[in-house]
């Protein structure tokens, strides 16, 4: 089996600055999240309510999407459907050109990152300007996001100062004080907000009942992009729909505490179609499939679509903490990425990711909508072994088959134990197998010492005591 994740991670793990930045960030936010959650007495009830809302929504997704389309249209918006990334990119590009614009201001959006919107627009000569501070840092540095919530988490303040000095005019004297760096971004983007004709956003939630779109943010760039331009285009995955307005009261309690560890994020904007004399004159909603219906088709993997993109699972993951986000080679890193990426791409990308986990279960414990990530990881490992070429090959299948036979009957199991003890004896030194094992088994001993089988098994000990 080829392990793309392990190969990509090798480079990241060797970068000690990156590891220090990420360790520092994930530990900080992890501790804050715990505090923010601990003060909510009905947290577990809210999680369960969140899980049920999402589960019910997915089980009737077609009906909710049709209702959302009716509500948005009735409120003066236009709904577009995009089967895949290229469709969505073409629709957005056509709308921008149709509005007579050559540039657009963007709110941070994972969906548009997933479909490569900025690149596709650039190919048509349209500039998409990221306005979230971290996204701006990533864009100016021609870098890739490494975290769902704080995409520039792998950069420290010194690196950001150097970047701003180089790319933002008039900032040669900039210091590395975060407040001063934020001020430089404010000055750079202000005029762009005031003159932008088109804004592009994603959506955290969309309410089918009312046609209301909801985005959560901190800086005010989201309010700028969704309020000031004449034309607003929102790209959202079809799984973001919620049936009722009241469902938001659950999500708006779960998301900020899980995500930024705040009681509430500074700004949450909700809008419904177009409002006369207030905000954009045109509103377009692009509903994106982009593989989501493939995820929906697997009843055991479907819950990956429940994700509300809080990133709590990244911050507690021992694997993410060491590799950072880039090794996942996907818009969605960390545990949620490990179950989402292979499913979204129909097992054409990220197939090694379900193995990028120790199955410790921390991700499940913090998930605000109780996605059972470890179970889905195991489910996907099994599917990938069965369905994808290059996985679950001869040797592994043979070994697992033999193990399954050994575990099937007590007598076989005891004989297998005795056989293993005999086999390991020449390799054992002071209770450990630490020399390189021959062949494929060497990949285990390369990175781990193996405790040798004990001289007496539990079953033997038990039999004697009786």
């Amino acid at each position, binding site marked *: 089996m080829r392990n793309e994740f392990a190969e990509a991670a090798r480079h990241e793990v060797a970068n000690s600055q990156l590891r220090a930045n990420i360790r520092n960030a994930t530990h900080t936010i992890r501790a804050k999240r715990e505090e923010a959650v601990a003060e909510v007495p009905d947290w577990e*009830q809210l999680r369960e309510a969140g899980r049920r809302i999402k589960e019910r929504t997915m089980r009737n997704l077609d009906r909710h999407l049709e209702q959302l389309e009716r509500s948005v249209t009735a409120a003066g918006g236009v709904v577009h459907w995009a089967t895949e990334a290229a469709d969505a990119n073409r629709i957005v590009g056509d709308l921008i050109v149709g509005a007579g614009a050559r540039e657009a201001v963007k709110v941070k959006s994972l969906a548009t990152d997933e479909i490569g919107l900025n690149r596709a627009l650039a190919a048509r000569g349209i500039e998409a300007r990221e306005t979230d501070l971290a996204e701006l840092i990533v864009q100016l540095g021609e870098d890739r996001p490494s975290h769902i919530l704080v995409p520039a988490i792998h950069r420290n303040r010194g690196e950001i100062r150097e970047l701003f000095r180089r790319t933002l005019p008039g900032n040669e004297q900039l210091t590395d004080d975060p407040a001063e760096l934020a001020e430089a971004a404010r000055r750079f983007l202000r005029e762009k907000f005031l003159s932008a004709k088109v804004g592009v956003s994603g959506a955290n939630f969309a309410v089918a009942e009312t*046609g209301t779109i909801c985005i959560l943010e*901190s*800086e005010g760039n989201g309010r700028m992009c969704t309020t000031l331009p004449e034309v607003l285009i929102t790209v959202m995955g079809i799984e973001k729909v919620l049936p009722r307005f009241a469902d938001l*009261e659950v999500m708006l309690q779960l998301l900020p505490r899980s995500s930024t560890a705040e009681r509430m994020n500074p700004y949450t904007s909700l809008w419904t179609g177009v409002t006369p004399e207030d905000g954009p004159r045109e509103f377009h909603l692009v509903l994106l499939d982009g593989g989501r219906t493939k995820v929906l088709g697997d009843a055991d993997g479907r819950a990956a679509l429940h994700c509300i993109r809080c990133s709590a699972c990244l911050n507690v993951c021992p694997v993410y903490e060491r590799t950072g986000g880039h090794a996942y080679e996907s818009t969605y890193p960390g545990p949620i990425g490990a179950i989402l990426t292979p499913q979204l791409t129909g097992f054409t990308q990220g197939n090694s990711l379900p193995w990028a986990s120790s199955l410790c279960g921390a991700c499940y414990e913090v998930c605000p909508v109780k996605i059972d990530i470890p179970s889905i990881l195991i489910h996907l490992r099994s599917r990938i072994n069965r369905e994808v070429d290059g996985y679950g090959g001869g040797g592994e299948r043979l070994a697992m088959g033999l193990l399954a036979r050994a575990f099937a009957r007590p007598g076989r199991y005891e004989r297998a134990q005795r056989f293993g003890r005999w086999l390991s004896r020449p390799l054992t030194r002071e209770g450990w197998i630490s020399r390189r094992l021959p062949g494929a088994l060497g990949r285990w001993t390369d990175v781990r010492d193996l405790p040798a089988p004990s001289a007496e098994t539990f079953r033997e000990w038990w039999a004697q005591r009786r």
Partner: protein
Amino acid sequence: MSSRELILGRVRAALADVADDEPASWIYDRDADEHSRYARAGSRDPEALAALFADRCGEYRATVTRAERAGLGPAIAAACARHGASSLVVPTDLPEAWRAPGVEWREDHPSLDVHALSGFDGALTGCAVAIALTGTIVLDAGEAQGRRALTLLPDLHICVIGEEQIVEGVPEAFERLAPAARSGRPLTFISGPSATSDIELKRVEGVHGPRRLEIVIAG
């Protein structure tokens, strides 16, 4: 086949395991099930709510003051003075009693352009509802609130909250906001001034939205 039909067809095919007659939305039945029965209403009295709200807002570094309804003019003038603000843009239906002397007032009518809005020292509005537990104010483009750009572009936002507008938790706020949402009005939830934690997770107050938030609780 249109993209719409294609996607809806794929969704239906993907859900082959779900029975056709399954109810379309999760009906919230709190009494039937304790596992998801979250708190829908608080128990604090109005005085305790105002105190909690002021406390939580303060943690976001908003400035919170309290005033008698008759004394709102001077309280607003004091807020302006704290930030050296001498020009305020206001919605057309702002109550007369809020217009403190010594401040230059300009109504947003006809709608000012974005550069003009940016030029004001501050904006003064009311709000629709305030949430004590999270220190949040919500604007719904209703009475004394004006359009969204008004409270976005000037660097100072002064917001007057009636004590009776404060609820304890998020669900109570949603109950009050439902009519506005159903009639298509935009909602803005504001919890402290604009902020970012994008650089080494250090919180910096004030990026693009107003960098200073003054809240006056009128009792």
